């Protein structure tokens, strides 16, 4: 396309009008030959009006030859429909230096092309310089991107902090659970430490704690307190004959008998081996003897699998002469020893022992008399079930011998 008479056709009133608008404006024909060129375009392009008139716009500004522009410009003339070229897509409709942007940059333009109503062979091109708005928008977008980035970092930090908080919370929870578990284990351990594994009764340690507490309370409040100690008769022989498992069954059954007779505030414990104790708070000597006697009867009448099992009992009750829990325990032990000596399967209260000892002394004195057997039987009879006549009491039941035996361990007691 080259210049033609377009310049000659420039309408003077139109050109003056175009000079009034604050936009770049020109009029072209379908070949893009300029027939009007306003003052703004002179200023932007540096092309004087005289030079512009008749100039082919696409030759001067080759960017207009791009298919995406040329086709639509042609359509304006073909269909009469106007065309707009946005700044964002096309940037520079006419490549001219920017007046507001960085040095050397091109002006960003927004362009409209429409036919002149009075002359559909000509189209008016108006160009708006939006460089300033575009750069402001670019700055805003950059700032927005920066803010989005800051926000993303902030969110990431918050999420990290939240994750940290949750981690600490979880650790705290785990710690609490561990503490709770530890406490449960401690309770279990304490329970185990205070319990006899075979029978489930309190063990010796737990019993001593209970005895000390009960003794202190009884002394402080002047309350009665009794202690029953029992030892299964001939347990070693039973073990030897029927095996240890059967022996264990006897121990378990013995604990069941004790538990069945125990009141809620009594303490039943396995004291060691086949020896058990029953601590009876608020119980005087008479009642304690009744309890012991009932238990003895329970043993005697229980249905044992292999052979009859009996038990011997020693009972002690707090009196003015008892100064310590250990002494009370010692008295029960002595009484038990006495029961053993008197033939087993019987109950002896410590306070009755003097009577027995006296009776035995008399027996020893009469040992040489023809009535001795009958007297010994009378002594052994007392408060008891069947006796074991095969046991010789003499080595143990002399008054001196008895006391000295109590001061030693119970292992010296007859089985």
């Amino acid at each position, binding site marked *: 396309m080259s210049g033609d008479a377009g310049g000659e056709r420039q309408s003077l009133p139109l050109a003056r009008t175009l000079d009034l608008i604050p936009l770049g404006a020109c009029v072209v024909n379908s070949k893009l030959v300029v027939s009007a060129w306003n003052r703004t375009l002179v200023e932007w392009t540096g092309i004087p009006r005289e030079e512009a008139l008749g100039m082919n716009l696409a030759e001067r500004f080759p960017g207009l030859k791009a*298919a*995406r522009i040329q*086709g*639509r410009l042609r*359509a304006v003339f*073909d*269909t*009469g*429909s*106007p*065309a*707009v*070229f*946005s*700044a*964002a*897509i096309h940037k520079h409709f006419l490549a001219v230096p920017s007046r507001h942007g960085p040095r050397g940059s091109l002006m960003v333009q*927004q362009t*409209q092309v*429409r*036919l002149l*109503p009075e002359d*559909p062979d000509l189209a008016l091109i108006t160009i708006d310089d*939006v460089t300033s*708005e*575009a750069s402001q*928008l670019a700055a*805003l*977008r950059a700032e*927005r991107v920066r803010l989005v980035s800051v926000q993303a970092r902030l969110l990431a930090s918050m999420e990290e902090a939240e994750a940290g908080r949750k981690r600490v919370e979880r650790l705290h929870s785990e710690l609490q659970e561990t503490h709770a578990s530890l406490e449960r284990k401690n309770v279990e351990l304490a329970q185990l430490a205070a319990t006899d594994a075979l029978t489930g009764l309190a063990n010796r340690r737990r019993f001593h704690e209970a005895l000390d507490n009960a003794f202190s309370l009884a002394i402080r409040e002047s309350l009665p307190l009794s202690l029953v100690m029992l030892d299964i008769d001939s347990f070693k022989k039973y073990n030897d004959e029927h095996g240890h498992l059967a022996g264990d069954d006897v121990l378990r059954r013995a604990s069941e008998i004790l538990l069945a007779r125990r009141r809620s505030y009594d303490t039943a414990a396995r004291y060691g081996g086949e020896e058990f104790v029953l601590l009876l708070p608020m119980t005087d000597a008479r009642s304690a003897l009744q309890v012991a006697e009932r238990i003895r009867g329970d043993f005697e009448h229980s249905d044992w699998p292999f052979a009859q099992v009996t038990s011997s009992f020693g009972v002690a009750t707090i009196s003015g002469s008892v100064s310590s829990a250990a002494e009370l325990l010692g008295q029960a032990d002595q009484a038990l020893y006495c029961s053993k000596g008197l033939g087993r399967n019987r109950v002896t209260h410590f306070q009755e022992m003097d009577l027995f000892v006296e009776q035995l002394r008399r027996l020893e004195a009469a040992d040489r008399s023809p009535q001795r057997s009958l007297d010994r039987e009378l002594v052994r009879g007392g408060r008891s079930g069947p006796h074991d006549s095969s046991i010789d009491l003499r080595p143990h039941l002399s008054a001196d011998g008895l006391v000295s035996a109590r001061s030693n361990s119970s292992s010296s007691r007859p089985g």
Partner: protein
Amino acid sequence: MRLDPIQEDILREQINIGIGRAAATLSELMGTRIELSIPSVSLWDLDEWWGRHQADLSGMAVVQDFVGLCSGRAILVLPRDSGLRMAQILGGDEGGSDELDLEMSGILAEVGNIMINGVLGSLSNATASRMNYSLPEFYGDPEQAFLSIPPEPVDRREVLVADADFHVSQYAVRGSLLIAFARGGIEALVQGVCALGTDAWEAQ
């Protein structure tokens, strides 16, 4: 007025040609292929159409008035997500902000201009009549496009609606082109389009 199946078919074809041209132009601008569906064409009572679509058309509109054999107002309505997505692709700012700024509204005005020009140009060709057009105007709220006063009295009761779907960069863009005619405009258009269409069919 009601369109009979033949009238509807001829209008659909002409509008399809126009949208096809517009899509070709947009493809050239975007530098990417645009896949176009066959548009549905129907005649609606404007209030009824608006009542049905108002909820899901919280978007934007581009308006161009036209004067000629038939006169009226063409309105391209784009749902917000479709409009923003298209503006982002064309502006080379994919994944950018979802705010409709000056630049994006400029892009969408150009998109609307291309679409409306394509369809009205096709209808104009079909009626062998020339129309005069206003420059496109962008509205951030489609309702404003309907409420603004057109240059000539427009029969607000009847609108020709062409719904088109096209895929750009694997993204579905939906748009509705509404053409509200001045009194007697739709009849003139249908008469003009169908007369030529029938002639062409007979000649064929």
